[in-house]
């Protein structure tokens, strides 16, 4: 039985990629560890991200109309394939919890300090669960409305902040040791660019799968250029202080004040986080429940959306002890932890599929 009957266009896929990559990166801009050279780390990370995208889109292109769970069963056999799929589903589930955790921390710290984290997270999860229950097409349409607005806000914020920009803050260029820069660049690739590996659960539902790779790359390039712009802006506005703040984008936008009327635009950054976080969490929840449904041969993924969503919220509430531990994981552990899921599984599967000449001719699109 077909678990997902919806189809999305390549344009919708690109927009979803933009929304997904923006996700929590709206408030935690990538490459922060490189200080004022964050934009270089972003550019290098984007290149590595494109390479990783090339690997997993090549896999999706080879097995048209199949998700990673189905591909694993074909390539490794039923039992081993399902074990590998469970690992991949764990990554999607854990990543969803991490995004929710970022969400909760930001709102607790900056917007609603008196509201319990669980309340906000449950409300967000209800909206995401409702969207996921309506299928990938509805999610893609939400992306079509929300992602362009976020891009518009990011560009407008940057234009309005121009009077406060001091380009001397970007000097000296390449101030960080090259080893550290490369580590931060890899961190930028793994968060957020290579996280698009989650789309291995979505690429099967693109109406023109042969154009899927270019659509994913296009989305990644658009978001990458916006991140580079944001990194330059944050460094040029905040200078050395940029490394002190947890949420530099939020602080950088606070300086906008045009004629005492047009100010407090940081609220727009918070709205961007809400909308893009919603897209990212929804896609991760969708991938998790669809993957579980395929692993257990269920007839529908809809009955398990809410229980999985609640488990994701529980993991988000308990997965780290405090903000420092979260930041340490984001800057150190995550870039290594993510490698097996972002590069390992897709690359090894692609190589084995090529060696075994899978899928057999005539079985594609069947």
């Amino acid at each position, binding site marked *: 039985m077909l678990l997902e009957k919806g189809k999305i266009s390549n344009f919708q896929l690109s927009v979803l990629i933009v929304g997904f990559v923006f996700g929590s990166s709206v408030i935690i801009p990538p490459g922060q560890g490189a200080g004022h050279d964050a934009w270089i780390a972003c550019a290098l990370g984007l290149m590595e991200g494109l390479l990783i995208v090339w690997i997993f889109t090549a896999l999706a292109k080879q097995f048209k109309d199949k998700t990673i769970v189905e591909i694993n069963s074909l390539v490794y056999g039923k039992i081993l394939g399902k074990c590998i799929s469970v690992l991949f589903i764990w990554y999607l589930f854990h990543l969803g919890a991490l995004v929710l955790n970022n969400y909760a921390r930001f709102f607790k710290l900056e917007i609603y300090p008196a509201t319990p984290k669980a309340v906000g997270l449950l409300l967000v999860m209800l909206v995401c669960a409702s969207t996921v229950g309506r299928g990938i097409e509805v999610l893609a349409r939400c992306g079509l409305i929300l992602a362009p607005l976020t891009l518009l806000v990011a560009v407008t914020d940057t234009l309005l902040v121009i009077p406060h920009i001091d380009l001397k803050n970007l000097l000296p260029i390449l101030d960080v040791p090259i080893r550290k820069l490369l580590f931060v660049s890899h961190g930028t690739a793994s968060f957020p660019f290579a996280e698009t590996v989650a789309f291995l659960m979505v690429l099967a539902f693109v109406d023109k799968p042969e154009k899927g790779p270019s659509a994913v790359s296009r989305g990644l390039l658009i978001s990458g250029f916006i991140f580079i712009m944001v990194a330059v802006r944050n460094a040029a506005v905040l200078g050395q202080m940029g490394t002190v703040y947890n949420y530099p984008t939020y602080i950088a936008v606070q300086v906008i004040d045009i004629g005492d009327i047009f100010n407090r635009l940081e609220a727009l950054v918070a709205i961007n986080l809400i909308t893009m976080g919603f897209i990212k969490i929804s896609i991760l929840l969708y991938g998790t429940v669809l993957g579980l449904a395929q692993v257990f041969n269920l007839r529908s993924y809809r*009955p398990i959306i809410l*229980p999985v969503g*609640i*488990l994701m919220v529980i*993991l988000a509430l*308990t997965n*780290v002890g405090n903000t420092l*531990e979260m930041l340490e994981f984001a800057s150190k552990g995550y870039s*290594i932890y993510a490698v097996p899921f972002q590069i390992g599984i897709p690359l090894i599967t692609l190589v084995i599929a090529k060696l075994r000449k899978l899928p057999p001719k005539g079985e594609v699109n069947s």
Partner: protein
Amino acid sequence: MIALFMIGSAMLALWPIPGLVRKRWWKELICFAVLWSMGFIFSVMLSMRINLPPITTIINKYITGMFGI
């Protein structure tokens, strides 16, 4: 607090179960029941302020220790 959890969880369970039973989707019902039970138990533990292991912190400690970073 725990009573609220019980009511909320029961409502959550009552919503899809009749449909699944009517369609005789037993496998889906078992999956739902297992996941729902896990969510319920963890929620009750959280509301009783029982500390659950911080999984991300454990993963980070393991990775940073293994790679010396």
